[in-house]
């Protein structure tokens, strides 16, 4: 094993938490049972790293196999680093009958055509997601396995989730994806987060949404906490209405975990009390960022507790409605479809 392979393996083992190490190695199935038995997984990381390095040297593990191990770990533990969502546009007629094997072959061949030196691994996960690991190389150098890009795609949907990829290589990846999935274009879905499942659930409508219904289902009985019957809430009905509208806007139960919502404003400043700013020519550029460990829960709580006004403002409810967390807001003159039109500008110095 050469130096770079050893380095890769070392970094990988250090990254995998000790309690997951054994199961990941079992899944990898490149080490014999005896070898795995000989390792004591309760020892310190450093000793473990040395031992496993020695065993892999013995087995003469190649870079490709170590990349496989990294992929297995990543699939089990995808919430490391940022994921960005993209949407494929204009499917061809036979896009919906695309098979896995076809997609694999096409993607590999297209990407190899665009860039000679890439290392691609494709794996299908149990939930029908296709995982792709790409190690990029220049025309001359070998693929760099220390900074791979991961791509997750569900066949027959138009969504692709990508971890970090440099702006130089992004168009190559986009082209390979578009051609192999039989679409005509790809665009940024303006949704990003650290939690892959969260952005997937948001895009694929797999979180618990609330709709008005004539026959509320029997199973959805609310857990009425039996509080002291002598205490009566003054505005119980209003609070219940607010909670209902907040749930309709953002969803019920546990919400997908998004970390931020960013609004980029390119509008004219309008505040009658501040003449200097209002008289300025040109647009007023400003970025408003909401950040939280779970921004949707925070927004829902704001709405149901009355901090945000009800009915929920379209700027806030668009996060779930349009499944995106990056917005550009311009004045009410018509703009491209990815921007939200705001009829009245409500910019004050407080916001």
């Amino acid at each position, binding site marked *: 094993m050469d130096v770079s392979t050893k380095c890769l393996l070392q970094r990988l083992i250090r990254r995998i938490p000790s309690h997951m190490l054994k199961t990941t190695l079992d899944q990898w199935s490149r080490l014999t049972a005896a070898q795995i038995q000989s390792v004591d997984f309760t020892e310190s990381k450093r000793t473990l790293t040395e031992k496993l390095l020695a065993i892999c040297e013995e087995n003469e593990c190649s870079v490709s196999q170590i990349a496989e191990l990294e992929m297995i770990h990543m699939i089990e533990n995808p919430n490391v680093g940022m994921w960005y969502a993209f949407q494929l546009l204009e499917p061809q007629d036979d896009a919906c009958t695309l098979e896995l094997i076809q997609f694999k072959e096409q993607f590999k061949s297209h990407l190899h055509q665009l860039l000679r030196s890439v290392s691609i691994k494709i794996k299908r996960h149990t939930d*029908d997601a296709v995982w792709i690991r790409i190690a990029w190389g220049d025309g001359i150098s070998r693929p760099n396995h220390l900074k791979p890009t991961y791509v997750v795609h569900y066949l*027959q949907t138009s969504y692709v989730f990508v971890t970090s990829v440099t702006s130089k290589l992004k168009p190559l990846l986009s082209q390979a994806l578009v051609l192999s999935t039989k679409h005509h274009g790809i665009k940024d879905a303006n949704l990003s987060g650290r939690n892959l499942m969260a952005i997937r659930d948001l895009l694929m409508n*797999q979180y618990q949404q609330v*709709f008005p*219904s004539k026959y509320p289902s029997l199973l959805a009985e609310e857990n009425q906490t039996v509080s002291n019957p002598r205490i009566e809430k003054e505005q119980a009905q209003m609070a219940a209405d607010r909670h209902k509208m907040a749930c309709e806007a953002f969803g019920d139960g546990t919400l997908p975990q998004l970390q931020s919502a960013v609004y980029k404003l390119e509008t004219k400043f309008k505040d009658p009390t501040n003449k200097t700013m209002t008289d300025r020519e040109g647009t007023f550029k400003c970025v408003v960022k909401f950040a939280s460990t779970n921004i949707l829960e925070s927004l829902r709580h704001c709405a149901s507790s009355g901090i945000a006004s009800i009915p929920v403002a379209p700027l806030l409810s668009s996060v779930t409605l349009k499944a995106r967390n990056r917005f550009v807001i311009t004045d009410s003159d018509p703009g491209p479809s990815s921007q939200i039109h705001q009829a009245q500008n409500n910019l004050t110095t407080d916001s």
Partner: protein
Amino acid sequence: MERTAAKGVLSHLCLLEVQARSRRNQTQQQQQSRVKELKAQLEALIVRKERLKAEIQAHKELQKLRLSMDKQNAPEEDENMDDDSENSTLLRTMARHTQLKDLLYAHHLIGGYDIIRIRQGKGVCVSITTAYEAIYLDTYNLEINLKPKVRINRHNIPPFIPLNVLAEQTNVERDINGFLDTVTQHLNAFAGRKQQLKLVKEQHKSVEVMESNVLCSILVLLFTVPREKTAVLCTLEYNDHTRCLPTRVLFESEDKQLPDSPQWKKNCNLLMETPVHRALLIMRKAGNIV
């Protein structure tokens, strides 16, 4: 007691007499007010009885109207109505209202879609239930704006069901019923295929699912033939997304003659016509697969 001892027995007797007399007066007053109360209650109860009688009468006539309406399935003039015309039209409208409510409830019970008005009539929310083999599966919801233009607002339908394409194809602006029927078909077929896959995984552990996808439009299964232990790869393509049955069945095996044998040709037809989990049961009973 000391007072009586001080004043004497006679004065005590006087005291008692005064008390008795005042109590008698009081009782009379109490009795009078009690009588007044009871009389008022009586009046109220009589009024209530009259009102309830009138309601019962109205309900009886409503029932008669409903019976005649259900038989003819259309509102018609009832010549036997003795009441004045205002009363009869009101009753007829009420009967029609209850008839429609019962129809809607029946539609809901048989698994059809429910629809309610939202935003003061500017939009509707449709609830589509899916079911397969008499088991209710997921419910999907759609909010549609009717004014100013028919537009789908928000929904929890998975993205691989192409709502926008279906809306264009069925011309949703003119025929919302057609659109909803198509969506219901697609959703029910998808739920049916998903349920079949789930049952295959549960009931047939010896059959390995090699490939499936989120739309459940393709299914690749690996069978093992008993005795020879040959592997057979079976590909089921569901290209018609409004149906729960495959459009194409393909067999591949190391034994090249196996797919052409009459037994497996029969299996091919079986898989085209029977839901896959039941077909596998039949094939297993016939000894074709493990």
